[in-house]
């Protein structure tokens, strides 16, 4: 079976607008969660993980500037980094490369702005509203920039969008449907309507996200993108590309249960299927980058699911959520977490579960996960999982290996 490796990565995130900065802040525990500038006064929370000082003009050409709203601009910038690092576009014909992105919220910044104008003042809507707002605009703009003419589409599965996108791209390369893919996720959802809508759900932390803490009080909303270049191992080696990690398994499931409440059977099935897809056993897993949103319900149910898959070993398995640093960027979270996972291999260091040590919070004793990482842990696991469990019970898990030729 074709082995699939990651040969490029790029990101625009609250903790770094390139992979080197992301890595530095990830392992230094520098959080991107901050007080929102110009925040609406009528919210129950004041913080978000925002991409500060993103300079669109540094990344977009004149044509892209007209069409790309913030979410697509993140996709363009992160993709360019990944494509440049991998050399993918010069190595393969455009029609043998796929682009599969996750994006659950589309062009919110444009839609909110035009809606506000229309509902308060009436009149006209900007004619570029449709191409700016469509969730697949990022995919189209990246395909145009790089001349990628293979299969290209956008997946929307709420907070699992990125992981579903990467998993599907992995399967397409593994099956030989394409030789390579540019894949990941991008989101820029932090508009007034979006913030208010999440506020109404009462799942956003009034303080800051601290996953698995006994006193956790919700998630922290975020924005950004992480994109990867992936390809078949043989071709990557024959052209001398640097290999960052190997994707070995992808598991999916649906809870078929509730539109917001999680259920442990679905996440457990997705983890088990990722392991089955990788022809691996739970005993080989040395680390899980958890979905770990910091909501009471998610973290309890995710812990339950980990126990179902790993049995007694769940208590001692190294686990962390990195959302205390980059926040919960909806569909883009899974892609940022895969990046954190890849960097863990590169640095021989598992990233801490940020938000706990900083707030002197204790790990929730009722979830029986005794090895939530309170600080970075030097380790070189062979196999790790990166999990995303979306609202509506749509689950996606990637199994990733340290690359060994």
């Amino acid at each position, binding site marked *: 079976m074709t082995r699939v490796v990651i040969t490029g990565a790029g990101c625009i995130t609250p903790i770094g607008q390139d992979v080197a900065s992301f890595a530095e802040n990830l392992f230094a525990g520098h959080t991107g969660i901050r007080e929102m500038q110009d925040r609406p006064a009528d919210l129950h929370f004041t913080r978000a993980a925002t991409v500060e000082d993103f300079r669109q003009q540094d990344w977009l050409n*004149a*044509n892209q500037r*007209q069409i790309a709203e913030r979410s697509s601009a993140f996709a363009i910038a992160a993709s360019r980094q990944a494509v440049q690092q991998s050399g993918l576009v010069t190595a393969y014909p455009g029609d043998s490369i796929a682009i599969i992105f996750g994006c659950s919220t589309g062009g919110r910044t444009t839609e909110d702005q035009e809606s506000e104008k229309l509902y308060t003042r009436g009149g*006209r809507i*900007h*004619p*570029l509203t449709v*191409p700016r707002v469509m969730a697949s605009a990022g995919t189209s703009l990246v395909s145009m920039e790089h001349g990628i003419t293979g299969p290209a589409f956008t997946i929307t599965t709420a907070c699992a969008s990125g992981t579903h996108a990467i998993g599907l791209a992995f399967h397409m390369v593994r099956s030989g449907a394409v030789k390579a893919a540019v894949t990941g996720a991008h989101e820029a959802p932090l508009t007034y309507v979006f913030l208010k809508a999440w506020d109404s759900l009462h799942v956003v932390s009034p303080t800051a996200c601290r996953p698995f803490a006994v006193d956790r009080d919700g998630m922290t909303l975020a924005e950004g993108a992480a994109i990867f270049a992936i390809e078949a191992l043989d071709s990557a080696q024959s052209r001398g590309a640097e290999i960052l990690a190997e994707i070995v398994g992808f598991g999916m499931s649906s809870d078929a249960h509730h539109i917001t409440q999680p259920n442990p059977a679905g996440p457990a099935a997705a983890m088990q299927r990722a392991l089955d897809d990788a022809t691996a056993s739970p005993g080989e897993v040395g680390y899980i980058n958890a979905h770990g949103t910091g909501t009471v319900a998610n973290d309890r149910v995710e812990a339950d699911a980990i126990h179902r898959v790993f049995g007694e070993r769940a208590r001692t398995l190294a686990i962390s959520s990195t959302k205390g640093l980059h926040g919960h960027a909806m569909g883009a979270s899974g892609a940022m977490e895969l990046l954190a996972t890849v960097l863990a291999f590169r640095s021989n260091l598992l990233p801490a579960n940020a938000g706990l040590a900083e707030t002197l919070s204790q790990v929730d004793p009722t979830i029986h996960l005794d090895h939530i990482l309170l600080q970075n842990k030097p380790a070189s696991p062979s196999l790790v999982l990166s999990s995303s469990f979306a609202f509506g019970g749509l689950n996606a898990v990637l199994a990733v290996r340290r690359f060994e030729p």
Partner: protein
Amino acid sequence: MNQVAEECIALIAKQKSIPPEQIRLDSTFDELAVDSLDRVSLAFDIEEKYDIEIPEQKLGQIKTVNDMVSGIEEAVRQKSAGPEKANPSANA
């Protein structure tokens, strides 16, 4: 060159990221690579600026910078003439 013409050239220059000196009144939209999306964007900018509406049919007939200028001038004239005069049957 009148003010409307200068403004049209400035708008096209901005839309296409080309120097205004390269745009003449008799330049065609084809020469300037003004595509259908550019046309609706330019029409939007103009309609907002002059608070006018260029009829759909007229929009399709605009092929040159000169056409664009005269289209705007005509719409502005009709607007200042008022709805009754422009369309005598409106209140009938």
